[in-house]
């Protein structure tokens, strides 16, 4: 019996080494798996909060209405009713938060209007489109059209 053990002793030591390694792995795992992992699924629940942690860069249409009621009203009554303020004016979160301190960027009306209204064969037919050069004949868009209520 002792002889048999002596002949397999090296294998027993090997098995013990493996067992020790497994134990180390299990302990390390218990210590290192991040908190909240597995709460909602195979991911760290804190990641959902991480994705919420960003201050909105765009303010949203409602925010503009607070101070710019007139423009908002003109917009709602005209052809651009469905167009958000930030579609043209860019992100206004900083401007709204600072209550006007941070100024929105200057708009290049010609480039901006053409972006939606220049004739393009891929645009749906119901979108008002013109050949800008032909239509404007050198004038700026805002010479004739009021941006918030563009119909003439």
């Amino acid at each position, binding site marked *: 019996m002792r*002889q048999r053990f*002596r*002949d*397999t*002793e*090296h*294998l027993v*030591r*090997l098995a013990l*080494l*493996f067992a020790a*390694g497994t134990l180390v*792995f299990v302990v390390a*795992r218990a210590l*290192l*798996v991040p908190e909240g*992992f597995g709460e909602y699924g*195979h991911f760290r629940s804190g990641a959902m909060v991480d994705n919420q942690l960003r201050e909105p860069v765009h303010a949203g249409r409602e925010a503009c209405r607070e101070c710019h009621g007139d423009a908002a009203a003109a917009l709602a009554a005209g052809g651009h009713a469905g167009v958000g303020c930030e579609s043209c004016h860019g992100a206004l979160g900083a401007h709204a938060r600072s209550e006007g301190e941070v100024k929105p960027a200057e708009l290049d009306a010609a480039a901006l209007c053409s972006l939606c209204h220049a004739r393009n064969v891929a645009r749906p037919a119901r979108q008002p489109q013109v050949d800008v050069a032909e239509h404007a004949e050198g004038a700026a868009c805002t010479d004739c059209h009021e941006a918030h209520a563009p119909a003439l």
Partner: protein
Amino acid sequence: MYPNELELQWSVLIALYPFITGLVAGAFILASLERVFNLEAVRPTYRLALLTALAFLIVAPLPLQLHLGHPERSFEMFLTPHRSSAMAMFGFVYLWYLLAVLVIEIWLEYRPYIVERAQTAAGWIRWFYRAATLGSYNVSPRALRIDDRLGRFVTVIGIPSAFLLHGYVGFLFGSIKANPWWSTPLMPIVFLFSAIVSGIAAVLLIYIGYCLVHGIRLDMPCLDAMGKFLFYAFVVDFGLEMLDLVHRNYEADESLKTLNFMVETRLFTSQIVIQIIIGTLAPLLLLGLTQLLTLTESARKGLYTTSAVLTLIGIFAMRWNVVIGGQLFSKSFLGFTTYKMGFATREGLLPALVLLVLPILILWLLVRLFPPMLDQEAETPAGPPS
């Protein structure tokens, strides 16, 4: 092209990785031919094949670590492996294969040598051998018989483990339904057979190289056996790849036009010329000659060597064509991009070359620690060319 597809995500290093694990699996399967299937002819290469497998297995994770955006977080695959991800399962398959199969098998094979060196070696290396004995110096005939039986058992489970090690790499690609170049159930099988082919070729070359360096006479029956197995494995591998090709062209689904165009233009050199003509048809022809004709020893040596070199080039090209090729076309089937491989960048050509050379250096070290052919260590000259 979808805008995000412009740059390739998986580089040459990711093509290198299946090449390396393929060599591991192939070398091990060659070694197991002797141990489990009692193929005495390849006995001379048994230990060398095991050491080759270990050398390449040690290097295998390195291309991946260089590729990862956050290699320092790679242990997360062990902490929270996502069971549905083939890549997550890699960590455990690799660990299993390294520790439970390869290291144990090498240890059992070399135990008498380790024990002897632990008692007689000079210098600090003696501590290495002493540690490797795990404190047990019993090398009685009974203990060695037990070792032999256990070693055989380990080899038996080692074969499916080797299949798993490299088969999962094929599955990793084959299970991506988004990519029609990769998505096929044949992928793990094709990868596995090309692994066997590349492993046999690598051990063949390493055996010839080792014997040349140490002035040992080459065992021709061993070389002949390896050549024969290389040939037959190659026939199966080629057959499988042709099956994939024929199947694709027959079904002719939406992706065919794009994929054929890609092969005819972007992948022409690497696939048609290098992989198929130089890397598959040529070695098949040369090996076929050795099987069909009676040739002199010298001629056979030359043909085996040439075939093995061409084979390795061809199998690497196959990995390249799968990995890089799969990213050259758009998933919209309406566009193509190009792969710009850097040289001295983190994932460039230089690290790839270093990683190809590194296993040879490791093997050199392993061979010094665990000499593969003790019974033929006498400095017999290689003999006149016959």
